[in-house]
């Protein structure tokens, strides 16, 4: 389906249009245009739900770099469907919310351009089948997230947060790229579907494990898993709609998507099982521990997002156990963890999105998010309060909200692990998991209560607020209300979601289990008095007690080990790297051009000359060479004379002219050897360079006699002569040996293949057009570089704009 491919590009095209529209319509109504994009895409994607639920998948390939196996292939199956609906659906709501949230004085055009860019890249990530294309979109999401976090770039903290998130997610992404290349080396394919089919033969290769760990690195950094979670709280400097969209509902779930997508590739391996489950469950615990101590509502939600992402991650780890021995009646039970993961993924996006919007409303209306200053807003903001209750109670895992259902399934899955007898799963590990999960859930309950009770109940403190508290305008309440409706609606009709969304996604994660009994369980709110419900009752009882006595045990957070944190390690690492690299750079960047030339030439002699010596590659064969004519001798001697004369030139002008003699002589040589294209180019380049020289001439200092010691002169002489020797030898060696078949035969058919008789230009414009295109781009970048260096440099005494 070409249309699905186009769907990825529609947000980018809309992003191109936004600046032009914003120039005309400088008001918040630009948001309505932007909102129509994800809304239309959502409806379009939703129209595929019945077909995808029926087991159909859509694939479309556009040939891109076919010779390297990189094609633009889009693939829509159940898994990408869930993510696609989340991206477009939550995207529409967030834009609707942002229309009322952002002030008209903000740079709305810029904001929506970034947001649309993000949306397009995210759709690219989830719809791409080719992992190289996936990687490109993956990094694009990091970049657009960077731009959105730094939207208020005049704030130092915004810039810090943006840089932090960029550094961590992009380095993870580069690791993931290395993993992808390893996968390609093993399987010879960049297509995820092909890799899934053939990976079985390669599980014993030495690259298999590193590839798995590197792909996980990418997923963990993106999804803010411990110890890479530290970027997420700082990313909360972004405007609240961005936090709701990128840093809770979609972008941080890209890592989860990656894990889900690669479960059929790596799942069933013990390392995958332990890493994903272990990191996930620890992140769940650590996030919930940290969330309780936050006083800023947004920071609290950030840690709670980390914690919930850990929960989903650990479920995917548990679910991968089912792939260990293939399909059997016993192994199906473990797939339920993945089912719960996908279910919780949807639920989390609904309730967390709503909660972020609620916090945004509170911040917008009263001017603070600090829970110590808030309180008693229930009567003043009844609608906001209702949504907050729905969201928080769902997060805490209480009925009648969707969080309850997925939380129960989570408990059930961790309890199932006790029966797992693969991967050397002892009774200790088996019982540790449920205990950690339960403790984390208790803390989740506590911070969910903090959100509701400390913001909306208690004593109202109007004197500590910036503004008088009022209910938010209707426009701002629509989006969170819709999400809250979903939170309740999914609880009452969970099997609609189960059949139409989760079922097809399960088939995508477990290809060998397709159509198996029990892969798509029936979701029921009431199972009778079994272990999960007892655990939930325990959570409520203990959590309520802990919340009531919160101020008595809060002291543990000031204990030493709790203060020792990863943030200071990150900052230390950053400053150390900067210090070391600037120290290193200062040792060799002297500011003298001649020093740099020495570096370049010495490196050249060592690598090229040394390489020739090392491989013993001298075999100079002059027997096939044509005899030299008189005219060639004359040109050569003119050149030699000119180059020797440059050394003794007294003025700069003479040197430039002599250099010109050299250049034009080469052009004449090209004519003699019947290479008119090269001759033409050489002449024109020479002319333009001379003009440039003349321009720069004006700025250059007087050419004074160089004062240097004798030994330095000798050293320079040696370098000059060695470079000349290396080049000459190299040229002779290359000329004398034909190691490869000449490719000129191919190009001589230029007329039939490319419709042109000028071989040089058919190479430039057709056979190797990709090279030419990139060269043009590089040339352009160089031009812009010169322009910015000269025009935008800070004058003396100007303020340094960096930092």
């Amino acid at each position, binding site marked *: 389906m070409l249309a699905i491919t186009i769907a990825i590009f529609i947000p980018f095209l809309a992003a191109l249009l936004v600046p032009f529209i914003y120039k005309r319509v400088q008001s918040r109504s630009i948001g309505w245009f932007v909102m129509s994009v994800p809304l239309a895409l959502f409806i379009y994607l939703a129209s595929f739900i019945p077909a995808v639920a029926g087991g159909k998948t859509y694939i479309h390939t556009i040939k891109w770099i076919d010779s390297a196996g990189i094609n633009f292939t889009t693939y829509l199956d159940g898994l990408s469907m869930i993510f696609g609906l989340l991206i477009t659906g939550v995207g529409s709501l967030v834009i609707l919310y942002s229309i009322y949230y952002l002030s008209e004085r903000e740079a709305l055009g810029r904001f929506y351009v970034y947001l649309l860019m993000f949306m397009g890249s995210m759709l690219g990530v989830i719809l791409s089948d080719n992992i190289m294309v996936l990687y490109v979109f993956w990094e694009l999401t990091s970049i657009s997230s960077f731009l959105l976090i730094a939207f208020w770039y005049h704030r130092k903290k915004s810039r810090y947060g943006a840089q932090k998130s960029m550094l961590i997610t992009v380095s993870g992404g580069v690791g993931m790229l290395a993993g992808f290349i390893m996968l390609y080396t093993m399987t010879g394919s960049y297509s995820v579907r092909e890799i899934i089919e053939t990976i079985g033969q390669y599980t014993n290769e030495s690259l298999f494990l590193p590839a798995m760990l590197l792909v996980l690195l990418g997923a963990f950094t993106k999804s803010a898993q411990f110890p890479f979670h530290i970027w997420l709280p700082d990313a909360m400097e972004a405007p609240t709609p961005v936090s709701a969209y990128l840093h809770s509902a979609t972008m941080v779930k890209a890592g989860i998507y990656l894990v889900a997508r690669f479960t059929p590739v790596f799942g069933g391996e013990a390392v995958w099982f332990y890493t994903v489950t272990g990191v996930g469950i620890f992140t769940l615990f650590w996030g919930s521990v940290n969330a309780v101590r936050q006083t800023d509502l947004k920071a609290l939600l950030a840690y709670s997002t980390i914690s919930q992402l850990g929960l989903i991650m650990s479920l995917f780890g548990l679910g991968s156990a089912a792939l260990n021995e293939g399909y059997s009646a016993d192994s199906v039970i473990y797939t339920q963890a993945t089912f719960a993961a996908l279910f919780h993924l949807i639920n989390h996006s609904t309730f967390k999105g709503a909660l972020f919007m609620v916090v945004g409303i509170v911040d917008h209306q009263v001017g603070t998010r600090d829970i110590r200053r808030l309180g008693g807003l229930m009567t003043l903001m009844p609608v906001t309060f209702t949504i907050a209750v729905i969201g928080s109670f769902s997060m805490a895992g209480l009925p009648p909200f969707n969080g309850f259902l997925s939380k129960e399934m989570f408990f059930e899955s961790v309890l199932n692990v006790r029966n797992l007898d693969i991967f050397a799963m002892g009774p200790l590990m088996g019982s540790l998991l449920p205990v950690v999960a339960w403790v984390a859930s208790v803390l989740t309950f506590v911070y969910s209560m903090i959100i509701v009770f400390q913001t909306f109940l208690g004593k109202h403190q109007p004197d500590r607020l910036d503004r008088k508290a009022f209910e938010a305008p209707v426009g701002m309440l629509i989006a969170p209300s819709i999400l809250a409706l979903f939170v309740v609606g999914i609880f009452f009709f969970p099997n609609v979601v189960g059949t139409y969304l989760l079922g097809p996604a399960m088939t995508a994660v477990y290809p060998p289990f397709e159509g198996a009994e029990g892969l798509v369980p029936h979701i029921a709110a009431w199972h009778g008095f079994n272990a999960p419900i007892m655990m939930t009752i325990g959570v409520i009882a203990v959590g309520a007690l802990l919340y009531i006595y919160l101020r008595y045990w809060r002291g543990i957070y000031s204990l030493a080990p709790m203060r020792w944190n990863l943030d200071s390690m990150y900052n230390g690492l950053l400053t150390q790297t900067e210090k070391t690299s600037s120290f290193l750079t200062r040792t060799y960047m002297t500011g003298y051009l001649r020093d740099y030339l020495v570096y370049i030439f010495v490196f050249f002699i060592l690598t090229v000359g040394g390489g020739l010596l090392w491989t013993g590659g001298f075999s100079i064969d002059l027997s096939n060479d044509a005899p030299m004519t008189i005219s060639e001798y004359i040109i050569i001697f003119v050149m030699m004379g000119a180059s020797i004369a440059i050394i003794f030139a007294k003025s700069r002008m003479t040197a430039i002219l002599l250099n010109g003699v050299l250049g034009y002589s080469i052009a004449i040589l090209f004519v003699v050897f019947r290479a008119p294209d090269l001759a033409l180019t050489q002449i024109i*380049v020479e002319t333009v360079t001379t003009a440039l020289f003349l*321009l720069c001439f004006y700025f250059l200092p007087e050419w004074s006699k160089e004062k240097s010691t004798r030994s330095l002169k000798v050293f320079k002489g040696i370098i000059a002569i060695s470079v000349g020797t290396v080049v000459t030898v190299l040229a002779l060696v290359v000329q004398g040996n034909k190691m490869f078949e000449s490719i000129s035969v191919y190009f001589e058919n230029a007329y039939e293949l490319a419709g042109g008789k000028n071989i040089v230009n058919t190479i430039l414009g057709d056979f190797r057009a990709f090279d030419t295109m990139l060269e043009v781009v590089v040339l352009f970048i160089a031009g812009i570089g*010169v322009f910015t260096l000269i025009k935008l440099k800070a004058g003396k005494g100007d303020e340094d704009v960096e930092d």
Partner: protein
Amino acid sequence: MKINDVILQTVTKIVVFIILTFGVELFLSGHYNPGGGFIGGLVLSSAFVLLYLVFDIETVHKGIPFDFKKVAAFGVLLAVGTGLGSVLFGASFLTQTASYFNLPVFGATELSTVMLFEAGVALTVVGVVVTIILSISEDV
């Protein structure tokens, strides 16, 4: 630096047209004979550079009111755009095609998509070279 060289200015006024014509000729003939986008672009830009050298920047800018940065950017867009164009017709990225057309004055002429690509190259070269030279010369 005020230059008032009447002979040079008079000669330039004529020579520039010769160089420009030559540049266009080189650009157009590239498919069968020596020439092409890069060389054509360089020749065109050398004509502009000559103008800037002989007359001052303000005078030339009055006659040729282009922003050469935008010319370069347009060139890059054109070069990349022709590559993407082939994708829309289901071919690989940067596939070129050509065919003969009967044009009123020129008779049977070969028109090729390479031409658009090369035009992009030429515009980029002109834009970048002039931008670099102008930036350096204005930096006093």
